[in-house]
């Protein structure tokens, strides 16, 4: 059985993050226009999850090669949009 069972699409899950990370994200979010740290995290992760396999910059997303390059691209995008 998979360690990460698939959830129904209508459900939500709780993810735990370190308090220090939450505090840092709160500082980033303050005044950014995001309503909450949750909204910001969901926005970033949706962006990460939507990276297109056919993009020439990135290989297909799978757990073997989710690389620093993809994460850096997200960071650059957020910076260019003014959220970081």
């Amino acid at each position, binding site marked *: 059985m998979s360690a990460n069972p698939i959830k129904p699409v209508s459900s939500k899950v709780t993810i735990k993050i370190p308090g220090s990370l939450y505090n840092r994200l709160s500082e980033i979010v303050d005044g950014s*226009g995001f309503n909450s740290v*949750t909204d910001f995290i969901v926005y970033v992760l949706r*962006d990460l999850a939507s990276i297109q396999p056919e993009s020439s910059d990135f290989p297909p997303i799978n757990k073997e090669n989710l690389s620093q390059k993809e994460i850096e691209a997200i960071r650059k995008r957020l910076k260019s949009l003014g959220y970081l």
Partner: protein
Amino acid sequence: MTSNLVPPHGGRLNPLLCPRETLKDNLESVRGLPEIRLTSRETSDLIMMAIGAFSPLEGFMGEQDYLKVVESMHLADGTLWPIPITLSVDRKQADGLQLGTDVALIDDESGELMGRMTVEEKYGYDKQREAQQVFRTQEGAHPGVAKVYAQKDILLAGPVTAFSEGPYPRLFGSTYGRPKETRAIFAEKGWTTVAAFQTRNPIHRSHEYCTKIALETSDGILIHPLVGKLKAGDIPADIRMKCYDVLLDKYYPKDRVVLKVYPMEMRYGGPREAVLHAIFRQNYGCSHLIIGRDHAGVGSYYGPFDAQKIFEEIGPGELHIKPLNIDWTFWCYKCDGMASMKTCPHGKDDRVLISGTKLREMLSRGETPPKEFSRPEVSQILIEYYSRINRQGDAK
């Protein structure tokens, strides 16, 4: 009268509604034609084409236009266009239609004959790709994506002639406005700079503040509420109209504001929908579109200012209307007035910030939000509305 207004997108208004004097012949002409049932979104898009709001479109998009719009926000001829305007049918019906034949377009909900189309193309398409490119997500929980996924598998394309504007002229009377009419109003007033305010919600203090900022820098403003279909939980158009009427009556200079509604269905497409909003406001004669926080957004699918940033991707000369970008606005107790993230040096504890969810809860309980958040007259209308729907809910 010479007009100093921005030109329509594509250079001229292109309303596709048949002239009144030819309506009878047109209605006769579709007898016996195959019928295509339109979803509410397709009907509202047809009406937007009918009144010229979607100029320069001639009908539902062909494959080349569709693909280019999905991938790059442009029609095949290079004209800026951010969201596909399409008509879908199932494979069986598509197989039964010959290219070059005419079909009757019927609104599926009302049964009304809305127009006629010549079928020039029929083609398959990638719904997931459209969702990802247009809505930046493939999640079916996104209301705009859900509508794409609910579409049938074949798109029909061709020029249309519209026969009707649906119920909107009757429901909204003189408040229902067509681009030709608003252009005439603005020209008569001698306006050149006109800022449009898009809304699908009642106008609270933060929105009012955005419009007042626009009034400082424009000849006038167009308060332009969407009255097409919304998602469940949104405030219906008739309630919103009461809110707009009382607000404009009490808090705006009457000679500098025009209130007109438009019949499009909301897609909640965030950035790309902001560009669509800009295009058809340009057709309505507006030189600016007010874009605040999370314009045309839903949930947390878009960053709060993505809808402002997308305009930086538009090339010079592609769009005459300009975004009037305004930051997050709120009442600040320390500033002792309305302010924004750009003008207020204080912290969130000094600001009146109420989420949509919390607002609905307050109103449902009959609790009046602070006057710094919403004008009391508007709050009262909304409290009465929620009280009525709560009673209806209890009665079931």
